[in-house]
Each structure stands twice: as structure tokens, then as C-alpha cells.
């Protein structure tokens, strides 16, 4: 018996979401008196996972991502290690692979889980964060997807044993030909802080101050649905119910009134700051800190004050 964590790694290093998956797997294994094992893709040194309670790492190396090959490899590891629970993140790759493994092994897939199970059910986000379901698993193997930045990372230093593991090849005709990522920008999924702006900015030419604020904070930039629909900003920045979900530590909503779909998409964020000229904007009811004011006056001042704060505290 074991709990198996699927860890992607990012060119050998571990993201916060990887460490969150490791932490969750370790806690679940401890609660059930079993071992927390990680199946790790493309990392030579898995010792950082030991810090978060993983006692064995199965190391796989691949040339590039291939969903059916990854799924087949996970299936072999699950069987070999007699895993009863498979833990994965909510990354695009995890959400691609998990249903394939679930179908192949007739396992329940419970995505968007936010905490450890209680009385035999897993709490998970549903209705785009407007509700929480408590979900019971009826199959022998459970596949649990962790909603990002919910369980958190928890240190639990453990001696880790690292073993090479074979990739299972696939006859799938679906192949990656290239990837395009903006290397100079922080992705919304990985960001601790997100600076988001809406129609209140009046036009795409005014986004300079939003990007500057994001740069000062080390944040990702995002936008509301109308802004992406009007083509002011790329769709990849649209956050909300039909766009990207956000679950960062600090979310700035600037000139965004707070339509229910937007609020749902960002509700998992821990601290929200709203800047809006309209004191009746619905977002004020869902935020932690609010400023009634003109973004064109407030944001430039905020940038200067944050720069001063950063230089004092660095």
C-alpha cells in the first residue's frame, strides 16, 4: 500500500504546486500508515521532495510531454507500488492525464480538492468555487487533484530514496510539435500575486501602469472578460468563470466592477484589494481591502509607495 504523487517538475526544479502535491501525499500517507512515493518526471535531484515528506522518488526522464505515455507510466507505477491513492496537481498536464488514468484503472477522479479527507469524504470546489462538495470514493483506487494554493506546502523532513524508473512508450498519434511560453512573464497559475484590470481602464493604451505595478510586485497581469472580449488584452489573461481560475495570495482588481462570474473565478484568492471609482461596485462586498478612487490617480501613487517599501525591505 502507498500514496503515489505525480510530480511534473519544471526543467528539473519544483514549483510550489509540486511541493503542495508532495505535502498532501505525505500527510495522507501518514494518516493511513503507508508510504508517500513520488513519480517524478525530468528531475535529476529529487531531494527537495524529501523535505516535504516523500520517502521514495521514482525518476523518469522524457524528451517531451506526451499525455498517453505519461498516463501509461503512471499506471505502471501505481500498480507496482500498490498505490491506493494517486495525488496530482491542477496543472494543464495533470488535468490532461488524470482522466486517462482514471478510465484505464477504473478509478474515481476527484479534482479541485482543497483539504485532507474528513469522515471519508474529500472536500472539493464545485460550481466554479461557488460551492464545496464532499465527495466519497467508491473505487479501490482514488485519483485526487489538488486545487492550487489550498492545502499549502508543509515541511516534514524525510530520508528520500531515489530510483530510476522507465518511461512507458505510447503509440498515440498525438504529438507535441512546439511550445510557446512567455519566458519573461509570470503565469497566472504560478503567481503568488496577480494584478488584474477591467473596463475602468478605458482602453488598452492605459495598461502600462498595470504592467508596472505587476513588475514592482513580481506579479502576473490579468484582466476581466469584457476586456479580453474587446481585444484590449489577450485571452490568456482573462480570469473568471469561463477564463482562468485564480487562487493566488494577493489579487488586485482595478477598475473591475465584480460580475458574479468574475468573483467566482477569483474567489479562491486569499487577499483581495479593490480599486474602483464606484463605491457601489459589487466587488467591494467580496474584497478584503477597498479603495474608492480613480485608478489613474491611485495606481501611479501606489507604484511609487511600493517601490519605496520594496527598497526599504529588501
Amino acid at each position, binding site marked *: 500500500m502507498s500514496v503515489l504523487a505525480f510530480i511534473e517538475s519544471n526543467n528539473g526544479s519544483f514549483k510550489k504546486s509540486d511541493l503542495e502535491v508532495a505535502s498532501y501525499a505525505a500527510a495522507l500517507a501518514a494518516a493511513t500508515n503507508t508510504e508517500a512515493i513520488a513519480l517524478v518526471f525530468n528531475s535529476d535531484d529529487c531531494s527537495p521532495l524529501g523535505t516535504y515528506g516523500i520517502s521514495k522518488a521514482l525518476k523518469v526522464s522524457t524528451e517531451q510531454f506526451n499525455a498517453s505515455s505519461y498516463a501509461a507510466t503512471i499506471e505502471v507505477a501505481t500498480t507496482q507500488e500498490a498505490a491506493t491513492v494517486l495525488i496530482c496537481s491542477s496543472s494543464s498536464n495533470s488535468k490532461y492525464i488524470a482522466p486517462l488514468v482514471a478510465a484505464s484503472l477504473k478509478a474515481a477522479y476527484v479534482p479541485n480538492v482543497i483539504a485532507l479527507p474528513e469522515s471519508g469524504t474529500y472536500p472539493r470546489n*464545485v460550481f466554479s468555487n461557488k460551492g464545496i462538495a464532499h465527495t466519497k470514493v467508491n473505487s479501490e483506487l482514488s485519483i485526487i487533484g489538488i486545487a492550487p494554493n489550498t492545502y499549502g506546502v508543509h515541511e516534514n523532513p524525510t530520508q528520500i530514496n531515489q530510483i530510476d524508473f522507465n518511461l512507458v512508450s505510447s503509440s498515440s*498519434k498525438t504529438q507535441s*510539435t512546439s511550445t510557446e511560453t512567455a519566458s519573461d512573464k509570470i503565469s497566472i497559475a*504560478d503567481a503568488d500575486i496577480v494584478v488584474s484590470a477591467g473596463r475602468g481602464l478605458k482602453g488598452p493604451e492605459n495598461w502600462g501602469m498595470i504592467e508596472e505595478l505587476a513588475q514592482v510586485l513580481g506579479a502576473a497581469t490579468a484582466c476581466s472578460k469584457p476586456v479580453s472580449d474587446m481585444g484590449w488584452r489577450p485571452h490568456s489573461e482573462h480570469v473568471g468563470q469561463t477564463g482562468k481560475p485564480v487562487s493566488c495570495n494577493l489579487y488586485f482588481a482595478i477598475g473591475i466592477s465584480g460580475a458574479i462570474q468574475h468573483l467566482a473565478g477569483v474567489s479562491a484568492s486569499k487577499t483581495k484589494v479593490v480599486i474602483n471609482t464606484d463605491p457601489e461596485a459589487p466587488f467591494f462586498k467580496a474584497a478584503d481591502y477597498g479603495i474608492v478612487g480613480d485608478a489613474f490617480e491611485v495606481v501611479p501613487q501606489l507604484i511609487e509607495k511600493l517601490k519605496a517599501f520594496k527598497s526599504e525591505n529588501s
Partner: protein
Amino acid sequence: MKILVCISNVPDTTSKINFKDNNTQFDTTAVQFVINPNDEFGLTRAMWFKEKSGASIDVISVGDASVEASLRKALAIGADAAIRIDTIPKDGFSVATEIAAVIKDKNYDLIIAGRESIDYNGGMVPGILAHLLGYEFINKCTALEVEGSTVKAEREIEGGKEVLSSSLPLVIGGQKGLVEEKDLKIPNMRGIMTARSKPLEVITPQGTAELSTDVTFDKPETKSDITMIPADQLDLLINHLHNDAKVI
């Protein structure tokens, strides 16, 4: 090309979410149901293939008679025929298994489902369906071109996109990007009239056990009160974010 679009019937995005019967059921009182937005992007892309190359489009949904409104809307937009599997949908595994059983001999070239429904957010029906049918699979698909049986597609990854080559038969988990918001079609009167005479087949389910069960529901904790900061006292905000929220 034979296309199948899987339609989930979901609460409108503006719906307030409540639960009933000791928090064991979603309360549908006063809730407006619509075609799942991710499915609607897929249906619109299917219409693009139909208009460009004469593809046929079937739509399928799992649910009781109440889902027929969404299926009729899909027919009014331009789908040719609809199938309803007559059972209340449970987990994603049972839904995908029921759909696979009905369509396994129908030889669809392309199956488009939304990357997830906006109600239970399972995101597993397209992948499980692909596995059960032995089709190729691309999830979070944001662009799709088909030439003969060759497929060129894009999918969303963290911070960017991946370009993929694939081939038919194929299942995609679709989302915005397949078409844009402005491309979404509103049924016209002629479409609504012709939809009434298009076939809508109701099929008895084979019966599939669910692998997971939502036992109870609750709602996220509501926010504690907001702290208002005067616009000329931004140092106060920075102080709160640093010392109280500890996020900068």
C-alpha cells in the same frame, strides 16, 4: 466528417448557488439552465466545419427531459440531430461510459466536449470517453484545424500554449479560443422553426455505477468585512498587506 458535440446543461453563469434537502442536492429553484459555455465554443467550432466542408453535427446530452431545451437550442444553432440519454447524470465516469456505449458503433470522426462543465467542474468526460473509444485526445484545446485525417491543434499550458499534431478519430476537451466570444451564434427564427422537426432520439441508459458520489455540499465561508482605505493613505494599505495579510 461526422462530428459529435457533447452538451452539458448547466446553471447560467450568473446563478446564485444554493443547496437543499439537508445540503445533499443542488437547489434548482429559479435557476436558468444553459448550454455549458465550454461546450458552446465547441459547438460553434463544429458549425464552422459544417459551413466550410459540409460536416454533419450530432449533439448528445445525458439528463432528464429538462435538458432538451439545450439540445433544441443546439439544433436551432445548426446541429443536425440530437441524442438524449435518459438518466440523471452522476459522476463523470458514468456519464462518459453511458455516452461511449451509445456512440461506439456510430464512427464519429471528431468528438467535441467542453474541457469541463461549469457546475461540477469534473473535467473528465472528454478524456474518459477518448480512452473508452480508443480515440486520440487533446485537452484544453484552444485551436483546431482538420485536413483529411490530419489534425493540427493547440492547447493551453501554464503561461502559454503547445502546438500539437494528431489524427482522426479524435476527442477534444474544448474551451474559448476554438472560437471567440463574438463568434457564438444566437439561433434565428428559421433555425428555431427547423429545430422542431429535427430528430431528437431518447435512449434508455445501460446503467453504470458511479465511481464517486457527492454526499453533501456547503458554501465557501463568506468574507469577513472589508477594510476601506482612503485613496490618499496608500501607506496604510501597504502596512495592512505587509503586517496583517502578510502577502507582500
